[in-house]
């Protein structure tokens, strides 16, 4: 097995011990990208000289010499972000030292490539990008999830062991679920964000996508600029939220997630219970409205009118539609946000973790990204925010953990949410879940592309 197939921790330890030359690991990573990326389209740009320069000046930090990828949402000193789009909204992309770049550099990591993303970050599937769609390593005809499609595909495809994505309405957790890896959406404001094109955001965070929870803890510690100590998760109080978040799911997804919760309860729980939240559909539309409102400063009528046909028809239509929605809806969405935040604050006084499926169905086909649910056939982009939007609307942390596979071999993800600032509890719970499932799902690797 190549060191590239192992964890960030293994790679860092092998370099630190002198067992592996980081320059050889970097060459191997480029070679791996050259072999597998033509199928995956996860990495949209490499810059071997820049990567070698990073390694040459890398400090002996916790990720010294370890290759990682970064989503096309972050400026680098030698490259402005493109957001997976052929035309930038609101000016021109500018190269620079974004927060995620800076903390990766200071940790000794080597950015080996920029990872693909759904155009403008405006989709949960990853099937639209100016770079062409990224592909799901478990089935190349399937969506990798979005908008952090490239990070998800690159980590699952073992191009890198860790990648930095961004999550505004579930954009780290959906690709983690579709690709069978772990993705953490940190508490709002906790992870490095400087240099993002929406500096006033109240919903978007940077976060890690990795093979397992311990790697996620390592990369999150780097992004947070503070260590996230591991705990045992003993006495965890787990609650389910009955209703549409469980009932309106593909049966295979529902059953795998139910089984995972049972395993987690057996492993570490002091108790399990049920809690109620406000209407998930109101939560979904509120998260979409408030999230998309943050873009109005750069996606007003003049900017939208300037979009040419190199931008997807879907984006041109949806950006117009967004401008047609009544402003009064925003005020009501903020009231829903208040209601949900108060509700979660009360719930997290009684329980440590809430659980429901990360997405209601496994990865849809790239050519037709719709999912079949008990309620009918829906675009994945319509139903996924029902499951993922609440964490962005309210600011709480959430994680997606792989917990099974469908009969077709597609990964299934369970989402856990915790109180503000308790990202550590989520990582402890995810590690407990890995123990309870004997690491079957975090260690599962997709078929190697021919």
């Amino acid at each position, binding site marked *: 097995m190549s060191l590239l197939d192992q964890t960030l921790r293994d790679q860092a330890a092998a370099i630190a011990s002198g067992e592996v030359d980081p320059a050889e690991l970097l060459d191997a990573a480029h070679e791996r990208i050259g072999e597998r990326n033509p199928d995956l389209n996860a990495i949209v740009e490499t810059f071997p000289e820049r990567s070698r320069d990073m390694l040459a000046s890398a400090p002996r930090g916790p990720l010294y010499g370890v290759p990682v990828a970064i989503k096309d949402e972050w400026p680098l000193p030698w490259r402005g972000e493109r957001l997976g789009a052929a035309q930038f909204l609101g000016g021109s992309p500018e190269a620079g030292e974004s927060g995620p770049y800076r903390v990766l550099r200071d940790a000794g990591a080597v950015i080996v490539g920029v990872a693909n993303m759904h155009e403008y970050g405006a989709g949960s599937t990853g099937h639209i990008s100016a770079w062409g769609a990224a592909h799901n390593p478990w089935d190349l005809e399937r969506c990798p999830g979005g908008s952090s499609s490239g990070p998800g595909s690159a980590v699952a495809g073992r191009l890198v062991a860790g990648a930095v994505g961004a999550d505004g309405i579930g954009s780290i957790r959906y690709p983690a679920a579709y690709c069978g890896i772990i993705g953490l959406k940190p508490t709002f404001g906790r992870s490095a964000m400087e240099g993002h094109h929406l500096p006033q955001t109240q919903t978007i965070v940077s976060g890690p996508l990795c093979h397992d929870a311990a790697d996620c803890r390592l990369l999150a510690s780097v992004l947070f600029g503070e260590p996230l100590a591991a705990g045992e998760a003993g006495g965890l109080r787990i609650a389910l939220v009955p209703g549409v978040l469980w009932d309106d799911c593909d049966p295979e997804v529902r059953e795998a997630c139910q089984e995972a919760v049972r395993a987690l309860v057996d492993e570490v729980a002091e108790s399990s219970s049920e809690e109620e939240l406000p209407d998930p559909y109101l939560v979904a539309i*509120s998260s979409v409205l408030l999230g998309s409102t943050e873009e109005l400063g750069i996606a007003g009528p003049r900017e939208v009118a300037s979009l040419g046909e190199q931008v997807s028809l879907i984006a041109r239509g949806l950006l117009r539609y967004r401008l047609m929605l009544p402003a009064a809806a925003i005020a009501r969405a903020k009231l829903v946000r208040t209601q949900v935040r108060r509700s979660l604050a009360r719930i997290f006084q009684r329980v440590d973790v809430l659980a429901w499926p990360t997405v209601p169905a496994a990865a849809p086909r790239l050519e037709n990204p719709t999912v079949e649910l008990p309620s009918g056939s829906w675009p994945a982009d319509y139903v996924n925010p029902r499951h993922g939007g609440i964490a962005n609307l309210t600011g709480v942390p959430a994680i997606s953990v792989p917990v099974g596979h469908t009969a077709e071999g597609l990964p299934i993800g369970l989402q856990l949410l915790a109180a503000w600032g308790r990202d550590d509890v989520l990582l402890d719970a995810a590690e407990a879940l890995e123990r309870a499932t004997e690491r079957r799902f975090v260690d599962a690797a997709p078929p190697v592309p021919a």
Partner: protein
Amino acid sequence: MSASQHDSDGGSGADKDAFARLADANLRLLGLPASAEELAVIRGADALYRPLVDRLFAADVDEIEPESAFDPSRPPLD
């Protein structure tokens, strides 16, 4: 595509249905033309999301006291 093509949704005003006329009028107020294909995307989005927006307007949220000092990194203070 020319501006005149952008201004058309594939037919004259008389040919347009109510939704297309409303969307076209809204977009014209914004100074934002839309092609027939873009209007089709808008129509599809509206079919999905309009029921949720209507649900939002029908929701019993008027009595909710707005949050003071909103900070998404922390739980609400009130």
